[in-house]
């Protein structure tokens, strides 16, 4: 087998390993907790190794997809039909082929890396859980489907794995299915995703109709705006963009490692990744809309994050706003910077979530930051890691977040000034709420028994934190050349002449924003016992706290559209069709029968009379 073939089949191996472990766990090793965990970790870790090897062995050919087998074929297989072919006969064929280019390889690394770390982290975190094996099985299944999205070379394949990611996240979110909140959250996440997927599928159909292919490689510019936007709907659902962002915060009901894996690094990033994949099909109008959606999401989410008390929810909203950032970047025509931010964000957001997980673990599943405090002495390492992540997220100079955010701001500066401004504002807010979170959770004095009795978490949990903090420090550095490779090699974006000024502007703006946010946060929350903001902001803070009442709005809409319709339909089915239609008819027939029977009076002369009348009628009818 030549090297080419090895290179060709390695991604497939990476893809299939987790599936294999998932199947093994489901079928055989459900009973044996450690064995299952081992299988799952082994699979993803091996995958990580292979992906790193692949990423390292960059061969130049781009956008290369390899056919594995034909998934579904229609219209080819009429071998010995003697009849002449019909004029309008179409054929339809979907290949299962894998994308094997630097972008997918980079994504492979990201997914498997975070995946591995999360697996390791979960070893301890989930130790006491009785669904241990099931958890790891689902985790592997999720990794499989996520890798599927990364590797799929045509839209239908991507849609398939898209759905699978949805369902696996559903399984993971409602892992503690006996907890009503978790079950509901899973349901909400799945259905919201499905709404997005409707658009996605319609987009695929429209593209198929317009360019007669669904292979990403052969997609061109001749796709209409509508199709692009429909495709974008998928991303809106998956990476929780406004207006479909509501599911992500609730998804925090799932186990924290899951949140780290799915809702920080991978699944929600899938949308952005997909946008970058099919970037070519977007028309300028489409891009504009995409950008604005991203900007709005970023701003709204940041505002919501400011007033959350649940540590995971804070992170969730920050995730939302960061995703908004990335989408905005795509909208500003900078898929490279989007991918760049995606990568760095994966690192530090996973770090933050895992850190939060460590904190929660230590505080016996206490998640309210106002019930924590002074953890920096009790969990020094967690503290350091968390702060690193926070700084990176806040865009503290020379950390990874700083560079990636600058790249985005630069794009925005070049394309749309308003978005640039929004971006800066969001940067300020980000720095502010992260500062708030850190200060309240780790400084001051412990505000609850759980916080008092917290102590440092074991090494298996610390190790991922350390690794991730290193990544989130260095990943952005120009010396690594990640951004350069993305923009230059992968997306071939030429450096525009006024990039220099834009770059400086972005850098300055970013720094100022970060500083502003951190300082104001420090000033407000330096050993604060309760949140001072509500008193200052009043109404606005209530709106922030209640997430601008989106859930209520949607509940209202749903109740008054779909639910009402379904009630009406059920009513009609019961009373109109089954009742009036069916029972009515049968009743009418029955009554007719009873009436006609009255003819049979049993009286001979009536009978005779009837016969004569009948004869009379016949004769009269015939003879006249």
């Amino acid at each position: 087998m030549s090297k080419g073939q090895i290179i060709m089949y390695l991604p497939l191996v990476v893809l299939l390993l987790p599936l294999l472990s998932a199947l093994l766990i489901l079928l055989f090793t459900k009973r044996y907790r450690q064995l299952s965990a081992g299988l799952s970790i082994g699979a993803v870790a091996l995958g990580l190794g292979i992906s790193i090897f692949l990423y390292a062995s960059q061969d130049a050919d781009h956008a290369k997809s390899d056919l594995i087998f034909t998934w579904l074929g229609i219209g080819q297989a009429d071998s010995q039909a003697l009849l002449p072919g019909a004029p309008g006969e179409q054929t339809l064929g979907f290949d299962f082929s894998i994308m094997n280019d630097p972008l997918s390889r980079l994504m492979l690394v990201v997914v498997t890396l975070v995946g591995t770390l999360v697996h390791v982290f979960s070893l301890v975190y989930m130790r006491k859980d009785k669904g241990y094996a099931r958890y790891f099985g689902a985790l592997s299944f999720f990794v499989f489907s996520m890798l599927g999205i990364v590797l799929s070379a045509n839209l239908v394949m991507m849609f398939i794995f898209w759905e699978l990611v949805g369902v696996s996240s559903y399984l993971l979110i409602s892992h503690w299915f006996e907890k009503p909140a978790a079950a509901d959250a899973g349901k909400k996440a799945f259905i919201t995703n499905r709404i997005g997927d409707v658009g996605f599928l319609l987009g695929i159909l429209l593209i198929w109709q317009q360019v007669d292919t669904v292979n990403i490689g052969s997609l061109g510019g001749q796709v209409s705006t509508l199709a692009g936007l429909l495709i974008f709907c998928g991303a809106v659902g998956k990476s929780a963009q406004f207006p479909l962002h509501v599911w992500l915060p609730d998804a925090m009901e799932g186990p924290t490692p899951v949140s780290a894996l799915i809702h920080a690094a991978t699944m929600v990033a899938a949308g952005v990744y997909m946008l970058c994949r099919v970037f070519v099909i977007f028309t300028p109008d489409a891009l504009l809309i995409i950008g604005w959606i991203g900007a709005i999401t970023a701003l709204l989410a940041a505002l919501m994050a400011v007033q959350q008390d649940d540590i995971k929810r804070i992170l969730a909203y920050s995730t939302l706003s960061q995703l908004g950032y990335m989408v905005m970047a795509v909208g500003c025509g900078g898929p490279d910077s989007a991918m760049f931010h995606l990568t760095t964000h994966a690192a530090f957001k996973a770090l933050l979530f895992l850190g939060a997980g460590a904190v929660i673990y230590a505080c016996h599943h206490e998640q309210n930051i106002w019930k924590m405090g002074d953890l920096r002495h009790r969990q020094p390492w967690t503290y350091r890691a968390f702060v690193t992540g926070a700084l990176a997220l806040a865009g503290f100079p020379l950390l990874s977040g700083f560079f990636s955010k600058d790249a985005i701001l630069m794009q925005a500066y070049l394309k749309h000034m308003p978005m640039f401004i929004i971006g800066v504002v969001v940067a300020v807010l980000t720095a502010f709420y992260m500062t708030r979170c850190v200060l309240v959770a780790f400084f001051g004095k412990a505000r609850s028994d759980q916080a008092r009795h917290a102590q440092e978490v074991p090494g298996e949990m610390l190790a991922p934190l350390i690794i991730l903090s290193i990544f989130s420090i260095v990943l952005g550095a120009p010396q690594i050349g990640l951004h350069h490779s993305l923009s230059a090699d992968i997306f071939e974006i030429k450096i525009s002449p006024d990039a220099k000024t834009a770059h400086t502007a972005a850098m300055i703006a970013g720094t100022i924003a970060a500083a502003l946010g951190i300082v104001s946060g420090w000033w407000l929350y330096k050993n604060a016992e309760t949140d001072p903001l509500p008193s200052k902001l009043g109404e606005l803070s209530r709106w922030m706290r209640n997430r601008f009442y989106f859930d209520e709005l949607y509940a209202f809409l749903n109740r008054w559209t779909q639910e009402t319709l379904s009630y009406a339909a059920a009513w009609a089915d019961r009373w109109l069709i089954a009742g009036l239609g069916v029972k009515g008819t049968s009743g009418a027939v029955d009554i007719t029968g009873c009436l006609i029977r009255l003819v049979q009076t049993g009286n001979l002369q009536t009978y005779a009379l009837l016969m004569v009348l009948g004869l009379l009628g016949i004769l009269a009818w015939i003879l006249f």
Partner: protein
Amino acid sequence: MTIGLEHYLIVSVVLFCLGLLGVIIRRNLIVMYMGLELMLNAANLALVAFSHFRDNLDGQVMVFFIITVAAAEVAVGLALIVALYRKRQTNDVTDLTSMKL
């Protein structure tokens, strides 16, 4: 005017209808039988008239059969009435309504 076929036919039709009337409105079984007899006789009259005016005897042969059949019918019917009367002392049709609907 001379008496033609039509006159005989009209007589027979009227007689026929009288018999039918008897069947319909009289409730005494025996009288109903008489009505039936009248109907058959009316048919006989028609047949005879036709055969006369057509010069062929088939009609009369038919009449011969009809008379016999009528006699047999009456015999059976009257026997039936006797049996019925033994069972329930009646020969009124309005009492014969144990089966209906």
